[in-house]
């Protein structure tokens, strides 16, 4: 897809999320002196975009140093805010690179329940298929009812083979089989779905570690990527999620889903500050084409509604 069309699409996806924040900024800052009250209101706006109290205070702190007491227009505010946020996000905006030499590049997809892991895998499979790679899928969510069928439908759509096991089968054994089959079939990418799990459930997290261990028996370098799928509507708990998943299974990157809603996904900024963890892609809709690379400047500008 052409670059212009992509920007348009991302903007459209983010448009509604930014509408409110834009309106608020407009309302407060149409040529107004940047005093304490104004700064406080601006901080509130960032907080209600889920940036978190700490990050919001940090950004507003920078503002205070450079702009305090000045007459400002809302355009100025947005530009400066956008570049502040972009500066935080730029280092973490890294695409997910599939190494063809791995044969297959193993991608383990993890996250709490209902963030969109299976849908994201479907979208990824489609994109890899379109770019000429051979994807294979492992229906590792052997717990949730009909999770396997859900992935199988995506497999049909993308003509990707789906490795399955009966309900409540051992996910680690299934992952091992999947890798064996993928190696034999010469697949380029192996996408492993896992059951959603809350990060504070120790036994379930241990299960994920087992999958990691078992994969390494077959290929010591696997998994080559561990993706944490994060719902954009998640609040400050996302920090805890990333922390624990990172500790337990060494997450290599994030995918942020459901950015087409009214949630603004500001938590991403906090995550970038705290963990410096790569953000690979954002989901802005239900279609395969709605999984987009994460672009820092664009995201930041869209977040604050800069033109």
């Amino acid at each position, binding site marked *: 897809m052409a670059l212009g069309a992509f920007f348009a699409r991302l903007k459209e996806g983010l448009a509604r999320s930014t509408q409110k924040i834009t309106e608020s900024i407009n309302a407060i800052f149409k040529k107004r002196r940047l005093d304490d009250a104004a700064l406080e209101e601006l901080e509130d706006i960032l907080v209600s*975009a889920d940036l978190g109290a700490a990050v919001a205070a940090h950004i507003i702190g920078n503002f205070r140093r450079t702009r305090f007491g000045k007459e400002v227009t809302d355009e100025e505010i947005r530009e400066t805010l956008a570049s502040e946020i972009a500066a935080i996000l730029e280092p973490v905006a890294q695409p997910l690179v599939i190494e063809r030499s791995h044969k297959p590049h193993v991608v383990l997809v993890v996250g709490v329940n*209902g963030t969109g892991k299976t849908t994201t895998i479907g979208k990824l499979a489609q994109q890899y298929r379109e770019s000429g790679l051979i994807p294979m899928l492992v229906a590792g969510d052997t717990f949730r009812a009909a999770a396997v069928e859900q992935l199988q439908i995506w497999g049909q759509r993308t003509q990707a083979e789906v490795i399955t096991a009966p309900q409540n089968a051992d996910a680690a054994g299934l992952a091992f089989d999947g890798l064996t089959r993928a190696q034999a079939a010469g697949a380029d990418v192996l996408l492993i779905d896992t059951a959603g799990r809350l990060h504070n*459930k120790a036994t379930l997290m241990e299960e994920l570690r087992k999958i990691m261990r078992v994969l390494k028996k077959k290929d010591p370098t696997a998994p080559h990527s561990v993706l944490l799928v994060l719902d954009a509507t998640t609040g400050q708990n996302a920090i805890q999620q990333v922390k624990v998943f990172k500790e337990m299974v060494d997450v290599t990157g994030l995918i942020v889903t459901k950015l087409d809603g009214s949630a603004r996904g500001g938590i991403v900024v906090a995550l970038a500050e705290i963990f410096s963890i790569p953000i690979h892609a954002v989901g802005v809709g239900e279609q395969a084409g709605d999984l987009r690379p994460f672009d820092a400047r664009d995201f930041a500008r869209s977040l604050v509604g800069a033109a």
Partner: protein
Amino acid sequence: MFETLSEKLSGVFDKLRRRGALSENDVTEALREIRLALLDADVALEVVRDFTANIRERAIGAEVTKSVTPGQQMVKIVHDVLVESLGGEGAVSINLNAPAPIALLMVGLQGSGKTTTSGKIALRLKDKQRKKVLLASLDTQRPAAQLQLQQLAERAGVACLPIIMGQSPVEIARRAMETGRREVFDIVILDTAGRLAIDQVLMDEVKAIRDATRPIETLLVVDAMTGQDAVNTAREFNQQIGVTGIVLTRMDGDARGGAALSMRAITGAPIKLVGSGEKLDALEDFHPERVASRILGMGDIVSLVERAAETIDQAEAEKLAAKMAKGTFDLADYANQLKQIAKMGSLSGILGMLPGVGKLKARMGDANLDGAILKRQAAIISSMTPKERRTPDILKASRKKRIAAGSGTSVQEVNKLLKQFDDMSTMMKRMQKMGQKGLLRQGLGALMPKGIMPGASGRRLF
């Protein structure tokens, strides 16, 4: 950074406790902390504003001057306002006061847990209220969603509307209600597709479903981890289709659950149920006073006792109690007790319900420690001979080495267990002397091995 709301608030109140009287400055300082804590707990900004304003109003003035200590008074005010904001005392159950078949409409964002919750509610109504329930999935969007509900219905042992591919959600809803009438179901649960509140086409669709089925309850299913966007979701769904109740899912996570406060404040609709696990029976009533207490770090003793009563084998417990009374409690009994505790669920989950353990829990770390100690101790005891379990005094170096090797632990760990058991026996003897009253005062902490809960021996009870 990862302090829970309860910890932050206890920090504030610790400061207040040390002072003689509560000045306006104190209140202002406390409110600043409360505001930050609430924001960190994902309570929506506008709700936080109202909340703190409410507290300021009550804190400055007559109520405070009458207080025993200002800190206690402040705790009480925050607690009261929290309970009020969450819906007042007592749980509100699902309204079933209508002629059958009663339609329950489930709505919410994608991934909030509607389908699983539908299955849980069906099981609950069937088991606890002896209702004949029909589940119907109107989710034609997500692949295999209808199949998911069908499988859940099988597990719950309730009927599921047969899937006919190609029907629109409104058609399925009509068919569900017809089936409900024809086959004399008490309740028809309509599980809709996840939708964004800003997607007008899908919102119109759910309106059409509502008009076709006239549900007595429209339940908004919300993830407890939701951030500031909770306000938008709640407001839009409520304005467009009218919400009669809220179900908060994933309360078994460690999210601070500020969304509960936001949702309730925006919609005015009661939070009726709480999802607390992946199994179908993990659905509980929402008790505002318990959740408020939990938020404040006063613990959720009621839930703990309820859960204990559900899981602990009564006969087994009585046998243990008798042994304790006689002073013949040995390592085999201790192993039994460990098993009972393990059955109650994750250790951190249990600890979270105990009063004043918030800080301790944070120190232990969330995911790693869980249950590992219990398991290891059980393994050590399993590696002993029956005689050793009865009379641990005979355990000397060579036996200890054998046990350590057998259980995959070290001699130090065996020693640690023995020391704990020794402490416990001593404590039990002391408890016998104190009688029942003493046990209550010591709290449940006394029943846990010391090594697991250092410093939680009831000192910090409110």
